[in-house]
């Protein structure tokens, strides 16, 4: 399996462990008191995991947050900008989507947004912040 991190680093890893694994559709009652969480997306069109990540961050979860499951390279940006630190990718998806598509996922997508959210782990500054810097 492979790991793409929010800083753009990308590589093959032998194993991966998280303290807690959640499905992307899990309703959030309380913030789990763990150091790391893996959130699995059920389908490419199912964006609940993005909101779950942002809710966790908004409610103070400061540990490691990793996205996995039915994501495509184009969604890595969405994951990182919603509060994930990394995306865990299966060998099968790397083979099908192409290693380079995943390696370049964060540079080939639009990097700047109008509003950078406080929960984002991405490199965007936010165009509004750039415009009103002074």
């Amino acid at each position, binding site marked *: 399996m492979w790991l793409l991190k929010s800083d753009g680093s990308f590589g093959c890893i032998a194993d991966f462990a998280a303290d807690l694994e959640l499905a992307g559709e899990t*309703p959030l009652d309380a913030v789990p008191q763990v150091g790391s969480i893996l959130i699995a997306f059920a389908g490419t069109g199912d964006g609940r995991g993005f909101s779950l990540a942002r809710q966790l961050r908004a409610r103070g979860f400061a540990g490691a947050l990793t996205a996995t499951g039915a994501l*495509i390279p184009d969604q890595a940006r969405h994951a*990182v900008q*919603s509060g994930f630190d990394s995306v865990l990718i299966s060998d099968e998806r790397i083979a099908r*989507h192409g290693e380079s598509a995943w390696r370049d996922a964060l540079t080939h997508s*639009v990097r700047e947004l*109008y*509003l950078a959210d406080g929960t*984002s782990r991405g490199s965007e500054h936010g165009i509004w912040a750039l415009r*009103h810097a002074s």
Partner: protein
Amino acid sequence: MYQYDGHDQAFVRARAAEFREQVGRRLAGQLSEDEFKPLRLKNGLYLQLHAYMLRIAIPYGVLSADQMRTLAHLAENYDRGYGHFTTRQNLQFNWTKLEDVADMIDILAEAGMHAIQTSGNCIRNVTADAFAGVAGDEEVDPRPTAELLRQWSSLHPEFAYLPRKFKIGVIGAAQDRAAMKFHDIGLRAYPGENGRPRYDIWVGGGQGRTPRVAQLFAEDVAFDEMLPTLDSMLRVYNLAGRRDNKYKARIKILVAEMGLEEYREAVFADRATRDAAQFALAGPEYDRIAAHFAVLPVEPVAAPPVKAEGDFAAWLAHNVTAHKVDGYAVVSVSLKGTGEIPGDATAGQMRAIAALADRYSASEIRVTYRQNLVLPYVPQAALREVYEALIEARLATGNIGLSSDIIACPGLDYCALATARSIPIAQALSTVLREREARAIAAGADPAGPTLNISGCINACGHHHAANIGILGLNKAEAETYQITLGGQGDENAAIGEVLGPGFSAEEVPGVVERIIGVWEGERAQGETFADTYRRLGKAPFKAAVYEEAAHVAA
């Protein structure tokens, strides 16, 4: 109008490059069609019956003359010489090729345009009152709010894979010219503090299989709370909206199933966890955007009285609206010529409008949700010249707001989801209705009549639920059949039409519509609108006229 700065320009260029790369990976087989589909939809690209359709965003319906010429160029070089203006103030090209689309997007980006989120399960192109900034009854210009929301929602990382599409509409006047209450979220802006608006926020409007008029979610919301509230409204919907059935996935169903009160509580609970300070730049950004719209491009002038007779007088009466600046008029250009396809314009017509905008309307054009165009700043002294030029361009039909100003979706002639044709029905009806209007005008009578909208399937892109007479094309037992609804309204008195009874064949529709109008003409009190008559009488007399008399004749 709003002008892109370097940031906006870089943003649409980056999106164009990203899309080109996505198409490349699809063509190389690195993305399955299932994986590519949401990506192309988010860029307005549909696979239709005969070809790919590209839907281009015209945010809140505002276009420059140069942008209109860019659309004409695309129509000539990448389509069959025409385009179709939609009920979402967008433009569709129905005959594009996948391998051309990236080039088209590049050309659009150079003109400060894009196709971002004109489709797909995300926040769609934001719509607004097409008379913004020029209407006499306006309290707040909705365009700065719509532009702010365009920026906030564009490529939003969290709200790009929602349960279903999400439409936002904004108005700032008592009269609703944007069907605001038929949006997932509708905003009504009022004057607020420091030049920034306050808002009533409406939720859960929509058409489709389960039509709903929006409910009031929160009243008199301060500017600083608007975006944090929308942020949480979308989050609760993204997490709790149904994903098991596409017909139950819109926010209207979530609100109905949860109840408005519980939905509201969930939204406020979420908002309490969010750092409101991160939205603080929305204020200065609103001010920056509003400055683009604050300066009117025209100065008041003395207006000579316009002398009018015949067709010109009729055109003035229906297509020209009072302007908030003395000496000017708002000119609506009808894309509903007799026997024509509603909303279609040829490249030549687009260029003719662009030339008129340059010469007479501060180089600005608007697109209405009723699928017409608007020249917003025409000097009254030039109305005659504009009218003559519109005759040349075959765009001088004086029927804005009349029954022949029909809204119609593309239907089975193009749309892969359609169950029946809508275009031929619209064409046949426009001929019949226009004859009725011409007779009234010739007799010196009021040609006004019911509004009439046509959809080619239950998705209701043709707004049939919101028309006085709605026509829905269905497929029953392998044959097209048209169901009629009565009493709908898309304006500030938003209402959903009621089904009249069993449907009719395409050939029967014009006769049935004439009979319905005949009942109204017979029953209406002096000056009464169709909607008011219908509300007073209910459907019984219409039903009797349409079904019983028909049965009698047949027997």
